[in-house]
């Protein structure tokens, strides 16, 4: 199969009702023989550009459209969206909403059936096989995990046997383990079938590991298009657009005397390259002093002999936590990590009293959750939902923050709300509807809703999930600051970079209970343990391990110091 090219020629597009064009005189060529990544800051127009490839622009969003976009010989303005869907498939960022049929096979066959293709079933099965989901063909969509649903959406696109697949921010909605699996799947599809894959992505570590070419979109135009190793070396430009180059690239750049450069003179963009470029040897550092996870001896939460599960449709009652014991102390920052389904969220919900344990007891600040209403427990314990949307019930963020205080007839509601808004720098969004904000803003607002209650314990479910890097940094900052206001913060997360930078106690949950309960430092020294829990350490930890730095560095600045000393010897 020969390759096809998407050619964008002088494209300018303006959404109806907007004064400024989103895309300005864009020129770019994308070849189906490559795995292309498109990056750019928020609002740079990268998603709009990709929607011009499959004809959603200008056929679905009519605006002012100038220039041409062609897929091979087909000019998009002369075709239509369903015609173009045969050559360009699109997996949306909110892929759950892309799945419209209840059963997996029907959903994958949806497009071929709509086009009246008689071999729809063979196509659907073949597509499911290529993403490794052939066994799930008869399952209901809602029975699948998020990662599997993403693969179903991908299969639905593959069933049309397109020449291009566009995947919009897969790493944003998936946990790192599944995101990596999706990328591996995509790369395999690209290599074996020569289908061009275009990923909109801002996690540069995935780009470094899996993509061939990098297209940078800035201010509605393609700023440049380079090979990935060249593109990711344009560190300044990336940082200006709030995109973080891979940790290894940043470390290499900070090392003195060009110690970190490859023979080509460029910085490495993958751990593999870094290992060959960086000074070798085994620099022994002093283990950094870290608290042991018991900020104080005062016990706030006791979980004893807890067994809990939920009923399932086909497999009876599924036990998630079995004979589980745990104590959480005052003044600590606890990270709860583990694979999906290990019971992280379930444990948090049990601590709120929204669910009562099947067996055993949960005691929060001296209250047995079996005998206390969740409303009463919420006076001291705050739970921030994984999906911040579920926290907005009023028309403005300000009202949402005030909701708790007002329901308790607090005498100085306005003052306390204003205080929280100021503490978290939310002035700019305080009077907007929470549900219409971007995910990053929603996340910050949901933290404010929680902190307004002046809690002793804060429970957060995936606070950095689906965030771009700037919002992520913001949230991490809030987390660090919120510790000054509360006794203990418990975070359920997949984000090991957050764990490395923030936590002082890590509880690793496995299928049969707690696998480890230690400091981040010692957890990161056990690669086998992390793998067992479907976790992947941050690049800096992986690099430390490969370079023989023991104990591993958890932050970039630490490893730079240690490598620099080593090199200078």
């Amino acid at each position, binding site marked *: 199969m020969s390759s096809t090219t998407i050619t964008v020629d002088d494209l300018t597009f303006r959404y109806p009702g907007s004064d400024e064009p989103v895309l300005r005189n864009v020129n770019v060529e994308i070849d189906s023989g490559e795995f292309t990544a498109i990056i750019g800051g928020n609002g740079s127009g990268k998603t709009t550009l990709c929607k011009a490839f499959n004809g*959603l622009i200008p056929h679905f969003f009519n605006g002012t459209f100038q220039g041409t976009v062609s897929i091979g010989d087909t000019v998009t303005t002369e075709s239509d969206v369903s015609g173009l869907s045969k050559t360009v498939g699109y997996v949306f960022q909110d892929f759950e909403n892309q799945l*419209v049929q209840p*059963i997996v096979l029907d959903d994958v066959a949806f497009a071929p059936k*709509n086009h*009246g293709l008689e071999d729809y079933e063979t196509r659907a099965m073949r597509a499911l096989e290529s993403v490794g989901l052939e066994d799930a063909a008869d399952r209901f969509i809602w029975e699948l995990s998020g990662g599997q649903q993403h693969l179903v959406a991908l299969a639905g696109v593959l069933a049309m046997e397109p020449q291009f697949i566009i995947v919009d921010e897969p790493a944003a909605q998936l946990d790192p383990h599944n995101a990596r699996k999706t990328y591996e799947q995509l790369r395999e599809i690209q290599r074996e079938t020569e289908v061009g894959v275009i990923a909109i992505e801002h996690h540069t570590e995935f780009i470094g590991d899996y993509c061939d070419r990098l297209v940078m979109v800035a201010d509605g135009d393609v700023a440049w298009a380079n090979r990935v190793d060249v593109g990711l070396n344009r560190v300044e430009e990336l940082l200006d657009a709030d995109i973080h180059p891979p940790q290894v690239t940043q470390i290499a750049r900070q090392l003195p005397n060009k110690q970190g450069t490859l023979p080509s003179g460029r910085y490495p963009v993958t751990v593999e390259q870094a290992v060959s470029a960086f000074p070798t040897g085994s620099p022994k550092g002093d283990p950094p002093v870290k608290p042991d996870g018991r900020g104080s001896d005062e016990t706030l939460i006791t979980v004893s002999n807890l067994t809990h599960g*939920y009923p399932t449709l086909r497999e009876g009652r599924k036990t998630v936590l079995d004979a589980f014991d745990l104590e959480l102390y005052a003044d600590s920052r606890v990270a709860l990590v583990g694979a999906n389904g290990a019971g992280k969220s379930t444990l948090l919900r049990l601590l709120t009293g929204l669910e009562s344990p099947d067996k055993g007891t949960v005691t929060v600040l001296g209250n047995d959750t079996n005998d206390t209403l969740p409303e009463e427990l*919420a006076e001291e314990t705050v739970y921030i939902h994984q999906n911040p949307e579920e926290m907005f019930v009023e028309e403005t963020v300000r009202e949402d923050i005030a909701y*708790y205080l007002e*329901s308790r007839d607090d005498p100085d509601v306005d003052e306390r709300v204003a205080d929280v808004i100021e503490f978290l720098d939310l002035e700019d969004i305080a009077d907007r509807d929470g549900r219409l904000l971007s995910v990053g803003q929603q996340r910050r607002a949901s933290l404010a809703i929680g902190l307004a209650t002046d809690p002793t314990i804060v429970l957060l479910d995936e606070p950095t999930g689906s965030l771009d890097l700037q919002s992520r940094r913001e949230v991490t900052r809030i987390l660090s600051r919120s510790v000054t206001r509360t006794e203990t913060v418990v975070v359920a997360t997949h984000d090991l970079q957050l764990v490395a930078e923030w936590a002082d106690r890590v509880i690793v949950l496995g299928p049969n209970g707690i696998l480890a309960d230690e400091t981040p430092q010692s957890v990161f020294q056990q690669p086998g343990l992390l793998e067992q829990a479907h976790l992947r350490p941050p690049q800096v930890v992986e690099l430390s391990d490969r370079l023989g730095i023991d104990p591993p560095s958890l932050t970039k600045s630490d490893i730079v110091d240690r490598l620099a000393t080593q090199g200078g010897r």
Partner: protein
Amino acid sequence: MGYLDAIQNITIADIKLDLMRTAYDNDEALLNKFDPRIVIIWSAIFVIVPWFFYEPEPLFAMLIAALLLAYLSQTSIYLLVLLIWGSLSNIGFIVILSSVVYWWQGGPGGLRGAVVDNSVALLPFTMKLTVISVVSLAAFSAMSPKKLAKGLLSLGVPRPFTFAIAYGYRMVPVLVEEYHDLVNSLRLRNKAPEKSGLLRWRYYLYLLKLSIKAFYPMAFNVAKRSRVTVEAMETQGFSHSLGNEASRELRLGDLQILPRDVTFMLVSLLFVVVVSVFL
């Protein structure tokens, strides 16, 4: 209080699961084994048939048959109870109202006699209503969404409507989860009434208020989701399929009326004949 809460928690999870089972686990359901067109026509007939009977006995026989069918079709017990309770309380209200009016007007026999008379008079009506609700519930909850949509499509119902059925089935679990999450989120930010009152009525009233309040945010969130859905459907050729004959044929290709479908219809009609002749 812990005891009551535990019961409440179990029932919410169990009701959710039971509803899911009704909607999704149709593999064993009797009425799912037949051709969907037959089942739709069959249920249309049996929604009308009870109105031709006026004596309680044949109606009672039909009610028993309908309940048996509902049982074999794995209809949700909660839904059945809800439906039957609905028709009974509705009729009960009519009985009370009419009796009070009768008594007020000074009719002979007094209030008690009036209640008895009116109940007997309304009994067939009650049973008719119950039979048709049970029959339609059994038929529509037993058929898998795919079959139901197919059946309706082949009977000439427009495709956007049959698509909506399949889409509805896809979305129900999402909505249920979302709604439950929102109610929980509200609970964690509200204050439960300090005195719960007799049988905890204040507390339940408070929960009822919260569950009503959670509806609007749910509708809002769903509307937001559907923006992407509409775009995605466009990219999957949905609007293209609306006028496409080939696509329609693919959808209906494997519908076939088998001997067992005909047998089912005949046996049902025979049952009606037997009931009307012998009872």
